[in-house]
């Protein structure tokens, strides 16, 4: 298949991505009112509206924003099966280019093989797999099984038409293979008891296992543990992809500058912060979603920010009554005539985005009074992703 993105990369390492999103399923009921088919096992699943959107958003982030100077983006293979809703409501999914193939077993098999071969050209390569759709989580180390558009085509072997992420991952081994691998599995487990017998229900797309150990970094970020659902917002994608993109912009940026002055998101920082962002998004909707991370997570760079991150600093007056007289100045503590901001009032909070760094907060009182104290220099370590503190003036 022709990659959706195919950039000419100078000699050296490059990044190769495979992105799959399935919202439309041929053998599931076409509407919510239709009954489940009786001639095949479909676990009671229905059509969805968010996996293709999520894969599309992630693929576009890769194309437009992904940066890894050690392994620039080489190829993105994109397979999407959008729902009717997404075709009509999500920008870009209406008229997909011919490079974007439907996420059927045949197409995915070919794409996996080509992605494997591309990743195997240099051990310094980076391999990225993102798959979204209905799925079965097997363990933290397997990555699970993601159902493809023609899932349940074979009545007696419904799982033949799936992506077996664990089997793919085991095949991505050997000394010539990309040693930095990232798997994002954005799927919800199929919970019915029938799924317990999945081993006898067919074999999904995988790779042959060379039995050559594992890459030092082969991290599996799974959107939801079996106890919670993977949730999605129609038109905006899954909560997992929303959180992932937020983490890649700022939420999972490491707290210090790395080599070459880079601000980076690493395999470890993603593991630390991505689950919290997903859970927090779910909490805002009064829902629960608990992502997990498995596989091997040697700390390697995933993404380099284009510039110094801008960190929101939130300062809250304590006590709040001081807001009528307190004036804030944020500065570097060195140059007396320079300020990030000066004479700003609290409401009683004050939020201001600043380039990551060390700052000093000075608080004066206007009019001066004895009820509240002024602060000459309060350290403000504004490190990613955000800084918050109470400002004690009582």
């Amino acid at each position, binding site marked *: 298949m022709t990659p959706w993105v195919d950039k000419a990369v100078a000699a050296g390492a490059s990044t190769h991505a495979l992105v799959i999103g399935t919202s439309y399923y041929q053998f599931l009921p076409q509407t919510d009112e239709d009954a489940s088919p009786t001639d095949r096992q479909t676990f009671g699943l229905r059509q969805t509206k*968010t996996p293709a959107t999520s894969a599309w958003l992630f693929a576009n982030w890769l194309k437009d924003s992904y940066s890894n100077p050690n392994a620039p983006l080489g190829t993105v293979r994109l397979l999407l099966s959008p729902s009717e809703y997404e075709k009509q409501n999500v920008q870009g999914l209406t008229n997909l280019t011919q490079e974007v193939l439907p996420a059927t077993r045949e197409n995915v098999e070919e794409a996996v093989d080509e992605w494997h071969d591309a990743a195997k050209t240099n051990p310094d390569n980076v391999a990225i797999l993102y798959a979204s759709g209905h799925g079965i989580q*097997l*363990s933290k180390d397997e990555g699970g099984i993601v159902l493809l558009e023609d899932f349940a085509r074979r009545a007696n072997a419904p799982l033949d038409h799936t992506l077996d992420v664990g089997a793919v991952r085991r095949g991505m081994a050997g000394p010539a293979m990309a040693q930095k691998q990232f798997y994002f599995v954005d799927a919800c*487990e199929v919970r019915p008891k029938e799924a317990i017998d999945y081993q006898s229900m067919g074999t999904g797309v995988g790779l042959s296992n060379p039995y050559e150990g594992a890459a030092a970094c082969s991290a599996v970020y799974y959107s939801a543990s079996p106890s*919670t659902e993977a949730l999605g917002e129609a038109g905006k994608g899954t909560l997992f992809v929303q959180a992932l993109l937020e983490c890649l912009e700022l939420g999972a940026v490491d707290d210090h500058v790395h080599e070459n002055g880079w601000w980076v998101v690493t395999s*470890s920082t993603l593991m630390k912060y991505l689950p919290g962002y997903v859970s927090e998004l779910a909490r805002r909707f009064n829902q629960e979603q608990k992502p997990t991370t498995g596989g091997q997570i040697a700390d390697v760079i995933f993404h380099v920010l284009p510039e110094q991150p801008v960190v929101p600093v939130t300062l809250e007056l304590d006590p709040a009554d001081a807001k009528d007289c307190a004036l804030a100045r944020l500065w570097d503590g060195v140059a007396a005539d320079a300020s990030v901001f000066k004479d700003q009032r609290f409401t009683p909070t004050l939020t201001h985005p600043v380039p990551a760094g060390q700052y000093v907060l000075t608080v004066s009182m206007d009019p001066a009074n004895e009820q509240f104290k002024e602060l000459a220099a309060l350290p403000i370590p504004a490190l990613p992703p955000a800084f918050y503190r109470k400002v004690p003036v009582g």
Partner: protein
Amino acid sequence: MSSGDGSLKIVMPALASQEVRPAVNVIDANSLELVKTALCDEEVSVPAGKYLLSSTLPTGERSFAYADVSEGTHEEVNLVAVEQPPVAGPEAATPGLESLGPPKPVPSPAPTVDEWFLRFVCVGPQGVEDARVDTEIEKIGADGTVELTLRPEGVPGVVFVQVAAVGHMPQNAALPVNGMTTSGSCRLSVETAGHLTPFVSLPDNPLVDAVARYIHTGALGEAARLATQAEKLLAAKMADPYGAALGGYALLRLHELGRLHDWSTNLANLFPWLADGAIVAGEKAALEGDQVTAATWMADAARRGLPAFADGFSMLTSRLREYGSPKNPPPGVSSTLAKELARHAKRLVPLTTTIDFSRIMLAFPAADLAEPARSQTPLASAPARPWRRYTQSAGLEV
């Protein structure tokens, strides 16, 4: 201390135990580059200058501080958890979120389970046996959550607590203690709102508790660093094997196989009743490409019963699925061993779809721990001894 340097010591007064010494990033305040990573309470020499200090606590909270170090002087800095901004409540009306799974019935308001039953089971090389555990109710929360202190007897296997109510699927959770190990007790919380859910914690062993918390919050580097202390204890045979296994899992995840050196096989051999030791040894071999050793350890682990930790169950079942193919075994693995692995896979792999892998201890629903995947059946009627009955009015039967 070299010329131009000062010294810096970072203390965390809020830490519950001096055994737990989190790592602190010492960052140059001007360049924002990492100068070094120090341990809490460790005195380090740094060039005179201004520094930002950043650390992740076992609770997952981040902490920041600022230090100004002058040449030839000693600076001591308190590091405290960053205050958290007020959290906004959930949206007033839940918008139309979709679930990537089958539709579920709208849950009815969850009533508290008033009557439930509890028992303890040892799962080890000998099979599944009842276990004796001293049980003491510490607290009953306003929401009906019951907190108990558990002191298991010394048994050659992992002790599981099983809680159940009539009409509910029994829920199981592994305990991180055993009468034969240095830590003798743990805490069990049984949530009774809606569904019975057992949660286990280890407040009496702050080091292992901190390692578990770091793993739970995704801070593997910090977990591995603390686990090094557990490794030293293990070398002295004083260790808590549960802590050592947790450290082993953290190092495996970080792919720091060199740091595991003999630790993994020592753990597997010193504690032949603990499946986790064999899993750590087997997974290390698998990651190194030694499939025969890996397959042998994984079969041994499955013979030992069930691991105590969800990470161990994940690694075990993944390898069983990979190796348990009698028609096409990995190179060098005999068909006899492959057949045995296939038998274990048939018993254990189906259970993966019921495990909550976001938890540290292995926890799953099942009526029969000998055949957990095949016993996904609710409790039909009030069970007899050794089950113990709990009611809100009478407490836990003796």
